[in-house]
Every structure is written in C-alpha cells, then in structure tokens.
C-alpha cells in the first residue's frame, strides 16, 4: 500500500486527560479512510493533529514522506481541504467568495478561478445562481456543499471531513452521502472522514479505523469488523449500530 499520510507514535494529552495514546496509522492514497468510534475516542483530535490545529505532544505526521512541521504547515494546509460539521463558512462572504477566498489570496488568475468554480458547482451539484447568497441564506445541505467546494477549490491532495453530515436531516444526508461517494471516486481523492455512523462509514469508506479511548481498536473493511472482531468492544459497537439500522 502506498501511504500519503503516516502518523508515527503521535500522542496528545489535554491536561491530565489523554486524548490520544501513541499511535501509528497509514492513510492510503486515493482511498477513503473512515475514523469511527464513540464520542471522545480521539477521532476528531487525530484530524486536527494532521492539519495542525493541535500540536502533537510526541511523534510526527508525515505528508508525502516528509514530516509536517511548523515551518511547512502553511504550504501543506493549501494542499489539504478541511470540512467541519457546521461548515465553518465565513458569514460575511457570499458562497462564491467563501469558495474563491484562497485562490484570490494566492493571486490565481480570475478566468482560471471562474472555470474552477463552474467545475465545482457541477461536481457538488450546487446551483450556480445561489453563489451570490450569503451563508445565512442557504440551507444546511447547501452550506455543506459550499464548504466542500471551498475545501476542493485548490484541488487538494488530501481531504479531511469531520462529521460533515452530522447536522443534516436524513434525506439531505442520504443525498449528500451519494454525491460524496461519486465525487471521491471521480477525483480519486485521498480522504479521511470522521463519523460516528457505521452505515455512513460502510457506504463511504474503503477502510475503517475503529477507535476507542484514544487507541485504534481495529482496522480493516466493514466485513472485517463484522466477521472478525478482535475484541468484545468491536462486537458491541458493530451490533449496537446494526440494531439501529435494522429497526
């Protein structure tokens, strides 16, 4: 397997609480890796360590076989897209300006940027006539599509999604899940997706990393987790979610 991101012995504590025990993880190029587990298991922390919203206590994060440091993080962030649950859109900017912010900041030519914007609208099924609306004027699903466009604007090598569909109603959520899968496949995008919903993980993930209390409990496909659980926790987690799906 060819890894784009490798975590080596990465750990993080908040005061006395350990959020992440020393951990190794490889994220495969062109695939979707899903981090799943109960609240507080450290899955979001892991994502924030990769994009350096948090500094690891120990260990290194390699991006393309090169450690991410405070010296190169600014450049790395431009190669990483990041989408969070409520979108994190800037309320004072229109959808268009949110998406094009970095391209403008980096002085990209306007016609190139506009072409990219049209591409992104088509890709994310976002209506182009809504581009001049402000975030408060958009629905929850539209906001997440804009947030996704913003994350994809510079054609990032890595896409980080932190519970991107967590706050949406089931119908919108299902539609976006379908669109996301198409987008990931079409772009052959390397993705790390954080969710607590096993069905979503199974639908979108090539590889699932189940976490609990700051440790990786089991890694593999959804089939591995169901059929070859390595501990009682895995069995419990999978069955709890399955029972929800079945009812």
């Amino acid at each position, binding site marked *: 397997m060819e890894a784009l991101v490798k975590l080596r012995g990465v750990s993080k504590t908040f005061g006395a609480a350990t959020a992440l025990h020393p951990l190794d993880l490889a994220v495969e190029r062109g695939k979707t890796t899903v981090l799943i587990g109960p609240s507080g298991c450290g899955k979001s922390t892991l994502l924030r360590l990769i994009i350096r*919203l948090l500094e690891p206590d120990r260990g290194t994060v390699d991006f393309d076989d090169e450690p991410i440091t405070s010296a190169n993080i600014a450049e790395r*962030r431009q190669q990483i897209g990041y989408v969070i649950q409520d979108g994190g859109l800037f309320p004072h900017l229109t959808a268009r300006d949110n998406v094009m912010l970095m391209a403008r900041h980096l002085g990209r030519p306007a016609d190139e940027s506009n072409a990219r914007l049209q591409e992104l609208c088509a890709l994310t099924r976002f209506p182009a006539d809504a581009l001049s609306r402000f975030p408060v004027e958009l629905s929850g699903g539209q906001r997440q599509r804009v947030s996704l466009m913003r994350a994809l604007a510079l054609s990032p090598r890595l896409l980080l999604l932190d519970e991107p569909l967590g706050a949406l109603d089931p119908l919108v959520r299902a539609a976006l899940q379908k669109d996301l899968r198409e987008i990931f496949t079409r772009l052959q995008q390397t993705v790390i997706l954080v969710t607590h919903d096993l069905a979503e993980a199974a639908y979108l993930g090539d590889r699932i990393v189940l976490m609990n209390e700051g440790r990786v409990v089991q890694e593999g496909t959804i089939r591995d987790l169901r059929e070859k659980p390595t501990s009682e926790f895995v069995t419990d987690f999978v069955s709890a979610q399955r029972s929800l799906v079945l009812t």
Partner: protein
Amino acid sequence: MKTVGALLLLSILPAVAQEPVIVGSKKFTESYVLAEIAQRSLGNAGIRAAHRQGMGGTIILWEALRTGQISAYPEYTGTIAEEILKLSPPLSLEAMRQELAQHGVGITEELGFNNTYALVMRRSVAERLGLRTISDLRAHQQLQFGLTHEFIARRDGWTPLAQRYGLATPRVRGIDHGIGYEALRNGSVDVKDAYSTDAKIAENDLVALEDDLRFFPQYKAVFLYRLSLPGPAITQLQSLAGTLDEPRMIRLNAEAERTKDYARAADLYFNTSGSHGETLPHKLLRWTARHLQLAGIALLLSVVVGVPLGIVASRGGALGHAILSITGVVQTIPSLALLALLVPLPFFGISGRTAIAALFLYGLLPIVRNTATGLQDIAPPIRESAIALGLSAAAQLRQIYLPIASRTILAGIKTSAVINIGTATLAALIGAGGLGEPIISGLNLNDHATILQGAIPAAVLALVVQWSFDLLDRLLIPKGLRL
C-alpha cells in the same frame, strides 16, 4: 480604511495656525471684560490679538503666562502678592515689578479701580439680623456660607479671614461663583464671597459687609504681560492704565451681564456702538466647527490607537489584561481632573492639544474593549476554518476576523464619538473653544439662554453623529452580517 478617511475629512474643517497676541481671562465677568478691552485695544493699534476666554483660576492663568501659552491677562495686585509671589502685602508696584521680572513677566500701572473681596448677603436678611460688618457675623453662626473654591483655598481667603474675625467654622460649602448668586437668591446660602465691583451686588439688591478689621488687601487691577512681547503691544496695554475707576468698571460689568455679551462692554469702554459683533448663527457655526474638529481629531486618534490595542487585548494574557485595565482606569478619572493633570505638562498646556489628548484617552476604552470583545466572540469553527485554509495570520485578521467583528468595533467607535461630543464641551474650560464656550459663559453669567446656545447644538450634534454612524454601519458592516 473608509472610516479613517471620513474622520480625516471631519477633522480638517477649520484651519487654526496663527500667531496673534493671546490675551487670557479668568472665569468671571470682569476678567472677560478687561481681556476683551485689551484685545480690542491691541487690535485698534493694528496688532493681531485673540482673547482666550475663561481659562480658569489664578494658577492656570499664571502658569499659562509664565510658559508663554498666553501673552497677557488681567490680574489684581493683592492676588499677585499673595497667590503668585507668596509675599505678604502691602507690596509696592515697583517691588512687584522687580519680582515678576525674574519670571519674564511685566506689570502695567494700575488700571484705576480696586476690586477687593467682599462678603455679601441679601439686603433683607442682613437688615432683619442687623448685620453691617463682618464682625457682626460672629453672633450668627447658623448662617449658610456658599463660597467659591478659590476663595476657600486662598491665602487671603476664608481660613485666615475666619481666624482674624474669630468666626468659629460655620457651615461652608464650595460653590461656583455664578451659581452662588442663584443660591443666594433662593436662600440656599446666606453669605457668599464677591468682588466689590461685581454688578450683581446692585442688581440683586445685595449688601457687602464692611471689612471692619481691614483684612482684605488691596486688589488693584493691572495687566500682566510677557516681557518678550513687542514694544508696541506693551505700550498699548500700558495705555489702559488709569482709565477705569470703580463706577465705570461696575457699569461695564453690568453691561456685560445685561447684554450677555462681553464685546458690548468693550464697546462701551471704547464708546463704539455695537454692530461689530459676530451674529449668533456665525458664532454657532464657529463653535460647532471647532467642536467637531476637537472631537474628530480625538476620535481619529482613538481609532488608530484603540483598534490595534484591542486586537492585542483580544489575545488575552498579561498584556491584554494590562491594556484593558489601564484604559479602564483612565475612564474613571473625572474629565476635569484629567484636564487639570494634563495642563501643567510640557507640550500640552492651555491648548486644543490638551483637550484632544483628554478626549482621545476617554475615547480609547469603548474602542479597545469592543474590538477585543468582537474578536473574542468569533466562533471557534470560524477561526479554525480560517487557519486550516492556510491564510496567513495577517490575512486571517484582515479578511476574516475584523470584518466579522466590524459591527461590535463600530459600536465602540460610535460610543466614543458620542462621548467625545459631550465631553468636548469641557474643552472651553482650558480655552480650546467649541460649544462649551457659551455654556461656560452662561454658567458664569448665570444666564440660561447663553447656556442653551451651547447645550442644544451639542445635543443635536450628538444625535447627528449617532445617525451618521448608523448610516456608516450600512456601508461598513458586510451585508452577510446584516441579514
């Protein structure tokens, strides 16, 4: 940036740079009238002169003269000996001249009248109690005394007077001179200090109690001036000597108080008929322009300094706390005290600079605090998104945080602007002009109409400023935040 531009426009309205002979006056009618006469006399001789009205008490005027912020002002011999030179009278004019010369200050010959202190009462009360002399007060210690702050503190004022006459300290209250007459009329005080040439004595049917122990020294009016003044200017001031006896001075004071216009009293002195004066609309325009200039420059400085301080303060830590605490403490200093503290400092003194500095300091807190609060209130997901995008720290601040905090920051600037318009009325106390000028004259003359000439425009101005900022909100706050 747009804000800064708009404020710049506000602040450059009137130009100021001139170098006329500045004649100062103390905060009472006679001093205004004498200074007005001096200014007119200099003007008649072709010397450019300006009158800086009602700057304060003896110490402020003396310091302003000594340090060259004014060139001349009317003073009294008793005050020169007691308060300025701290020597016991009687002191000859010649002896004073020698002492004053050491400070680079000259003294004219006496103008002619003696304006000594007196204790005055309503005639009806004095007659009912059978009071004729200050000694008679000993038997009536229940009387309420309402004395000016200066008289209470003077070396030839209340304390030694009470000692000399054996008056056990009765009830003494400090009260403004003009308001004291009002208090006397409505009976809330029984005795107050006055100047013997004060037109109010006759006007309000008051009697002066005889200084039977000859306590008060002579207060012969003179002009003090800087020895560095050009010869013709000094000659002109000297020419006023011996031209004002007591009845004439009382008449001029009465004219000033009757017409509410010091210039009219000067007209009477020069026997010119009074069509020279500024019309009220013109005066209002001048006061308002000056007022806006003071408040505008101060606000501009507050914004330029306050927003960066607020940005630093928003990051918390010891420095952030220090910034918020210090700007907070400045706000608790009473504005009059802040002016008084700034006046003796070099560079400041009796000038528009001091007023602007005080207004600037008052304007800081709302801007610093609102900037800090506005930035701190930005939701963590927004901050993290800005960081994760890879924007530089400067771009995060300029493109994301400041626009999102703009509503709160502008609210702070608006608060500062309105406070500034109100506080700027105090600038007139240190001769910096503005709408405070008629307010202070009016307080002095105890004339409500004159007070309102300043108070109403100031209130209207505050409203206009408020409305202008409401409009500015629409221009400067991004549309996405107003939906």
